[in-house]
Structure formats: C-alpha cells, structure tokens
C-alpha cells in the first residue's frame, strides 16, 4: 500500500483488519504450543510447527508490513533473499545427510 494512495477512510477499515489478524496470530500461537505438547512424531511435529510459523509470518508480512500490496520490485528482492537462504540451508544439509563415506567421529 503506497502511502500516496491511502486515505484516512481506508485506514479506518484497515484497522479492523489489523485486529482480526492479531486475533488469528494469537490463536495460532496457542495452537502451536498445544500441538507441541501432544508430542507427535518428530517429522510431523516439525512440519506442523513450521507450517504454523510460516502462516503467522505471512500474516504479519502481508498485513502489518503491507507486503500484499507492495511493489513487485520489493517482492523480487525478498524472494531472492529467501531462495539464497534455502540454498544455504539445503545444499550443505543434503550433503550431510547423503554422504555416507565420511563419518563423524567423537
């Protein structure tokens, strides 16, 4: 949302959205703690927790940070940042997981 195009009326409408988002965020927080206490299998646990976290983050970014109506340029920059981080996580990780030749020694 570029500030140039928003009027006070829009903002008033948005305020209601902000509080709704807040409600959802709070709910999701409770949910993620609740799920964690269920002690699910490790894989599922991680999956659920991360899904909820991603959901919450997208809410914050989309609404509080107005990313949803932000310029495409900013999107592109952020997407590259996220892609590079994925590379930094998964490339070394996949080597650590697939490489059976080298062993960790205590």
């Amino acid at each position: 949302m570029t500030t140039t195009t928003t009027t006070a009326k829009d903002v008033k409408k948005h305020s209601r959205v902000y509080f709704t988002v807040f409600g959802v965020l709070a709910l999701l927080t409770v949910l993620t703690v609740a799920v964690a206490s269920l002690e699910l299998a490790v894989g599922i646990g991680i999956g659920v927790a991360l899904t909820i976290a991603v959901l919450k983050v997208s809410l914050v970014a989309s609404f509080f940070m107005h990313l949803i109506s932000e310029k495409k340029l900013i999107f592109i920059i952020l997407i590259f940042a996220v892609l590079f981080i994925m590379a930094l996580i998964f490339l070394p990780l996949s080597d650590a997981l697939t490489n059976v030749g080298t062993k960790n020694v205590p």
Partner: protein
Amino acid sequence: MSDDTGHEESFWRKYIFSIDHKIIGIQYGITGLAFLLIGFSLIALMRWQLAYPEEPLPWIVFAAIPALIGIAVILMGGKKRPYLSMSGLIFIGLGALIWYFVSGEERMPGAIMLPEFYNQLGAMHGTIMVFLGVVPLAVGGFGNYVLPLQIGAPDMAFPRINMASYWSYVSGGVIMLVSFFVPGGAANSGWTSYPPLADIATTGQTLWLFGMVFLITSSLLGAVNFITTVIQLRAKGLTWMRLPFFVWSQFISAFLLLLAFPPLEVAGIFQLMDRLAGTSFFLPSGLVVSGQIIAVSGGGSPLLWQHLFWFLAHPEVYVLVLPAMGIVAEVIANNTRKPLWGYRSMVYSAIFLGIMSFIVWAHHMFLTGMGTTIAAFFQTTTMIISIPSVVILTALFISLWGGSIRFNTPMLFALGFLPMFGIGGLTGLPLGLAPSDVHLHDTYYVIGHFHYVVAPGTIFALFAGIYYWFPKITGKRMNEKLGKIHFYGSFIFMNGVFMPMFIQGLAGVSRRLWDGGAEFLHAQPFLYLNEVMSVSAWLLGLAQIPFIINLVRSIRSGEKVSSNPWGATTLEWAAAPSPPIAHGNFKTLPEVHQAAYEYSVPVEGDGTSDFIPQNQPDKEHVDK
C-alpha cells in the same frame, strides 16, 4: 540536508565528515590506495622470506624506500597544498611500520621472520587487499564518485548513511592495523580464518573479527545506498538499457554485498562466541591440541564456518571483479570510439553472474569430504558461472574489432586487464572441476589463479579508472609518459610474479609455506622461481613510483583540460563540469535521450564530433 545556499561549510563538514558523495568517494579512494600500499608492503616482506628463507631482512632498504617516497611527496606537495603533503605521511608511517615489525623479538628476531609472523602477514595481506584495499577503492571510491554522476543524480540517495559507511570502514581498518600491536600479533589463520585453528589463535583473531564486523556494516550501508540510488535517482530518460555498463556492474555488486555479507556476520559472531564465551560452534568434540584436551562442550562443526565464509567470499570475488569489468567497459568503449558490442548480452550475463555466484561457494570445499551428488552440483554450477564471464570477455574482445583504438594510458591498462583476467579466469576452470582440483587445491596454482584475476586483473582496471576519471575529479590530466612507464613496468612484473606460481602449483607446492617449500623434496626443482617471483614483486613495487610521482605532480600542476577531454558520451563527462559542483553535481539535472555508447554513429558524419552525448536530444537525422 544538502545546501547550495552558499554559506561556508566548516573544514570538518567539508572534508572529514562530508556528506557529498564526491568527497566521500575521494576519501574512500585515498584510504583504499593507502591500504593497497600496506597490503603490498606486507607481501614484499613475505617475499623476502620466501626467496631467502631465514636470511635477515635488509630492512633498512625496505623501510627507507617508502620513507624516501614519503619525503619526496611532502616536498613535491609544497607548503601550498598541505593535504597533498600530508599524504606523504602515509608512506613515512609505512616505513615506521616496517621498522616496528623488524624491531620485535617475537616477530623478526635478528631481522629473520618467524613462522608465526609470516602467517600474520599472510592473513593480513589477504584481508587488507580484499576488504580494505580493492573493494573500498572499486566500490567505495569509484562507485561513490562516478555512479551518481553517470546516472545524473545530485548525490547518493542517503548521504548521511554514505558518510557512516565510510567511517565504519575506517574504523574496521584501524582495528585491523591495531591488531599488529597486541600481544601475539595480528590474526594468523589466513584470510579464511578456518576454525578450529582460528578459534584457538591469539588475540589478533578477536580483533580481526571485530574489524570484520565494522567492514561488514560499512558494506551493508553502502550496498543499500547504491541500490536505492540506482533504482530511484536515475535521470529522466535513463532507462535500464541505457545505463552505462559501469553502473550495472556496481548495481549488481551492491546486491552481492547486501545479501552475501550477513551470513559472514553470523559466522563472525559465532567465532567471537567461541573465542570469548567458550561455546563450540565450530569445535567438534574430542579436540586435543598439543597433547592437551580442549575443555569445551564440543559438538560443533568446523565445516559450518567454511560454508558461511565461502557463501560470502565467493560472491565477494565477483564484487572484486565486476566493478573492474565496468571500468574496463567504459574505457574501451570510449577509446575504440564505438559502442560496446553486445551490450545487452553483457548486462544479462552480469545479472546471471550475480545470481549464480550465490550457489557455487562450495567449490572451495571440494576436499572437505564432499559426496558425489553435491560435488556434481557445485561443479556444474561452477562451470555454468564461467559462461557469463566468457560472454562478457568475448563481448569486450569483439568490441575492439572495427574500432579506432587510441592507446592512451587508461586504455592500455584496460587492454591489459583483458588477457590477464582471461588467464586468471581460465585457470579457474581446472579448479572448478573437482578431480583436477584434487591435485591443485591449496597449491600455488590457486594463488596464481586468483592473483591473475585480482592483481593484474582488477588492479589494472582500477589504474585504468584512476587515469580515466582523474580529469573528472581534478580538471587536470595525468602525464601520459609516466603513465606508460607505469603500465609497461607493471605489466611485465605482474606476470613475473604470478606466472611462475602456476609452475610451482602444478608441482604440488602448498601455499602458505613459511619457507616457500624449501622443506620439501618435490619443491626443490622449482625453488629458484621463488627468487624470480620475489624480485619481480619488488620491482613491481618500484614500478609504482612513476605512478605516485604522476599522481602528486598532476594534482599539483597537471595539464588543465576541458570538462570532457576524452570525448565521452556518458553523463559524468557530458553533463557536468570537471570537477562537478559541490553538493548537486549538475547545474540542472540532465535528461537522457541516448543509449550509453553512441560513438561513431554513421549518419551523423558531419566530421566535427564522433559521438552523441547521452543527454543530447534526438535530431531528426539521427533517427536511424
């Protein structure tokens, strides 16, 4: 924030804490050159030890030369130019630094270099050259000075952040230099600072890490500024495909700095924690150093550092070379008097290069026990990333064809860049293929590879830039004869230093050896090359004297020139006076109507001028 109301700024505001991009650019440039000089001096000392292991250094000579140059600079600067004279102090300070090195028993007893000290010099040579010398000069110096002018902007987007970036850089540099004076000396684990070695190293390593934090901050601030400036402050009509290639190269480098440095910051914080808070991010369990069990919790991973470090350091090497390519492209287009051939393909290649450079980092780690799939991945990306470099270099070569080539000093350096970068790039290929890297990894072949890209490559491009933009900065031209001596001297001796490294590398001589391999039998047949390289390196240093004289003399009494002496199309020459006006650059902001390099446009042919400046409105008869 900027004021052209004409009221006199204080000395401090004007020259020290200036927020004018031109002053900041000059500050960056001079500081960068000074660090280049220091970096060179460190290696000059090391090369003595490599050529004549364990012989006392004739330190009087080594200290006297910079001191004498310093005195000469002071005298040449004269009373009228106190700032010029003061730069002589840099050289005298350097002489004093060398004297300090020799005077310490823990560094050079009897003027003989200890291995510990050799390692300090090596690590600091790499660090200073990369982070304090070349990048600040190429990005901070040229980027700051030239980029806003080339895009027709009154200044950087955030002048204050620009100043903060410079002073953060200076702080980092000072910390790095101070580290020579703490007990145990400076960092001594290589510029790569691999743990566990770096985790257990002396205090200098901690200072290195603090210094890096400042340098990282500086680069991040700079990068935000550059990107915003290019996106937001381009002159009217300056579309993306009309940008000079130099602007593109800076733009992409800024992205690399922005996104690649934070992981190194994380790595640096981890290493600081390891060193100061006793954590073991990079320390596996069960370390025994000199028979003593290291009392830490363990469980860390030394490879984590390498991943984080090279995630930065590989993009960083393209930060070293992209601006250089940008400078070379400007100079070549200008001095062949024709447009760059394949401008678009160059731009796309540079963008592609930037993106790819984030996923090749582990080609520095082939020998860390990497499995087949990942090795295949990184070999492939490494081969892929060599293609855009080939495309850019090819385009530059082809651009020469059909030109009307002027061999002035900037052009000579730019032309010198091409084959030198070519050699450096080509020797990157065997390193990028894991099987051949097995033999060549961590040998002098690697040293040869990257010095060809950074020293006769990037440094030549930087020299080209200095000679090319000097008239812009001062309104005076540098002396051509001295310039040519400087070029030919540098060209010969650069090759004299770095060519033999390939031979030693093929022979399997490891890098970072205090005695240059004298310990090892397989190195014996090639030890004589150490002397060849060292002598070349010293002569290379002496070959810079004409440059220093030229610089000082031209500032003092160079030949005055018009505002566009090279007959260039780009805005910094075509639309701004030389030197450009303080705070604002242009009398009125220019408007752009042309592509970046409209030289020798065929229809124009009235014989008076062979170029169309970017800000010249279209005449009817130019509508090809």
